[in-house]
């Protein structure tokens, strides 16, 4: 009887040890990634999906090595609602604080998504010494300028996706192509009444004018606008040839539908145009969005062969979520988790100051090129060649597909004009 009991005990103990050894990483205290995201909007939900995909992959491979032990990532998401019209910035700040104090987040990844909210959250991150990697939405150059101006205070803030100045540079390069190829020279600017869009539109207008472009007008639309007819008529009246759009609200699809129905002879070019970034845009506009150009900020948010990792990520995202990577925030949020893993492993700790130092030394070939941060302002270093830095992507909707047309190093097609614009 004793021998039988002893054998059973040994068997159970062995089974327990086998099971526990297999889930060693999972048994360790997880590293909590707090994600303040506006989850009802593209730049929120696609970031959440990118983060969760990376976390699942990393955890499936054993987790993060921290000082000799394997620890898994855990994700905590709180809806900041900062992209919704009328929601005050304080909501996003409460979300960030709740993630830090209530959910015990070790790092903040993702948002806040709206520039105003992200800028306001910087002091909070500094107060709690929480390393944050912005991965979506926030385009204002002021973010990294603030880090550069007051490094000691804001050193915990990083941004891994492109920003407005970089975007403007890429868009103007594209404009030059359009000038050379089709002789276009007159730009009308339509922006949403939010910080990044107003700022972006203004900067683009100024630089384009200096480069010899004629700016035929600027229209600022409040968030939630559902009729753009008068602005489009103004653009037509001013003989505009390109309509440059800065909008992240879903209603921007109405603008494209109206543009098509009114046959406005100007090419819609979204600097930020959340509606056109998404794979569902074609169906949402019943094909009326054809020829629309838009920037998805970083490669990997549209199909291309920027690096060997690009399509690997693209396919994994599509498989997991049943939809292709949807726009700004998908590839950068995914990459942020891998970059953080790399920095934690090199630092050997999750101590904020040591992780900051490790992040500054990041040099990783990622989904959208070589990922490095400028050590002075913590902005990801951009480039036109993925071997040099983080590359952007401008796509055009052609025959139901998102075709990458810029930069040339990763382009899969060329810009086309709608039939009613062909001279």
């Amino acid at each position, binding site marked *: 009887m004793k021998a039988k009991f002893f054998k059973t005990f040994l068997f159970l103990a062995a089974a327990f040890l086998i099971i526990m050894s297999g889930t060693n990483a999972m048994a360790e205290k997880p590293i909590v990634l707090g994600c303040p995201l506006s989850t009802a909007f593209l730049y929120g939900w696609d970031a959440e999906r990118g983060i969760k995909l990376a976390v699942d992959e990393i955890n499936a491979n054993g987790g993060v090595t921290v000082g000799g032990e394997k620890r898994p990532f855990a994700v905590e998401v709180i809806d900041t609602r900062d992209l919704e019209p009328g929601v005050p910035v304080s909501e996003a700040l409460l979300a960030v604080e709740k993630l830090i104090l209530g959910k015990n987040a070790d790092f903040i990844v993702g948002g806040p998504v709206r520039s105003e909210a992200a800028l306001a959250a910087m002091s909070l991150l500094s107060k709690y010494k929480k390393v944050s990697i912005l991965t979506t939405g926030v385009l204002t150059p002021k973010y990294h300028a603030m880090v550069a101006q007051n490094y000691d205070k804001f050193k915990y803030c990083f941004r891994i996706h492109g920003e407005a100045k970089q975007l403007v540079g890429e868009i103007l390069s594209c404009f030059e192509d359009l000038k050379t190829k089709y002789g276009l020279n007159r730009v009308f600017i339509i922006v949403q009444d939010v910080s990044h869009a107003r700022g972006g539109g203004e900067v683009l207008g100024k630089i384009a004018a200096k480069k010899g472009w004629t700016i035929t007008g600027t229209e600022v639309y409040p968030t939630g606008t*559902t009729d753009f007819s008068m602005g489009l008529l103004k653009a037509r009246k001013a003989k505009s040839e390109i309509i440059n759009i800065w909008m992240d609200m879903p209603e921007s699809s109405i603008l494209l539908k109206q543009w098509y129905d009114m*046959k406005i002879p100007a090419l819609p070019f979204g600097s930020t145009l959340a509606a056109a970034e998404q794979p569902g845009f074609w169906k949402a506009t019943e094909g009326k969005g054809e020829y629309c150009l838009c920037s998805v900020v970083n490669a990997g948010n549209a199909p291309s062969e920027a690096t060997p990792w690009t399509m690997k990520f693209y396919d994994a995202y599509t498989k997991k979520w049943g939809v292709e990577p949807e726009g700004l925030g998908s590839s950068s949020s995914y990459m942020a988790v891998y970059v953080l893993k790399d920095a934690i492993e090199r630092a050997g700790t999750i101590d904020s100051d040591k992780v900051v130092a490790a992040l500054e030394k990041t040099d990783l070939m990622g989904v959208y090129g070589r990922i490095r941060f400028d050590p002075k302002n913590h902005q990801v270093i951009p480039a036109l060649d993925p071997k040099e830095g983080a590359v952007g992507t401008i796509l055009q909707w052609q025959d139901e597909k998102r075709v990458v047309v810029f930069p040339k190093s990763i382009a899969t097609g060329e810009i086309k004009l709608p039939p009613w614009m062909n001279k």
Partner: protein
Amino acid sequence: MEILIYGIINSIALVLMSLGFALVYGISRVPNFAHGALYVITAFITWSLLNTLGLNYFLSIVLSLIAIGVIGALIYQFVLIRVRGMAISEIIASYAIGLAILEGLRWGGFKGLSYRLPVFIEGSVNIGDVPVDYHRLLTVVVGIALVAFIWGFTHYTKLGLALRGIAQDERAAMMLGIDSDRMALVAMAGGAMLAGLGAILLLPLGNIVVESGYNVLTMAIAVCIIGGLGSWMGAVLAAFIIGFAQILSVVYLGSHYQMVVALLAIILTLILKPSGLFGRQKELEERV
């Protein structure tokens, strides 16, 4: 020319957004803050019938309008009737219902660009030199027909006259045997159907998004305050004032002033004529 054309289109859109709110308040004196939610949910019901069940578009519209009428009646019968006459409670209860519906839709995954209704007629036409799509023109025709129908209904049918009786003097109407609660129930169902009809006409121009519920509620309140709470003819006139003011502000000031114009009009109305343009009963109360 474009100011005239798009001024009329914008005004009719505002009429469609606000008629239901004006009707419910005019008859039952209940400020239905769930109006925007009823607007959005009708579109989602139509979308579901069309895409999930694969029903015919016209049939989907009819069924969703019936469904929203029933939902409106149920909201009144089970919630609002209990707080009727207590203005603050009415606002809180109806707003809470609206919030629950809108946030429930969002929580249920109704977000993004996937939800859209087809336009009734494709294509556009040039009026003078101004391009206008057929669907917007149809919206104007239906909007005008709807206003004419409501006028005829409230002047020449027994039910319509009973509704007007309650709206004009509830106690006198009750003395004549008109059931106030039943009329309020009818008004709530009718108001919900008007909100739904607005959604079915206006949302094919864009996408069905939860946020439009909040925008529609704001615009409906603006129109009704300026027109005079309780007066649906006042609401129609106010819709034209705001509609044209918005278009003029877009042309001469800038697009971002269009929302400011509506809110400024509310403030001016509250300062200069708090009862609104056609709020005669309220005006009498104010004088007393």
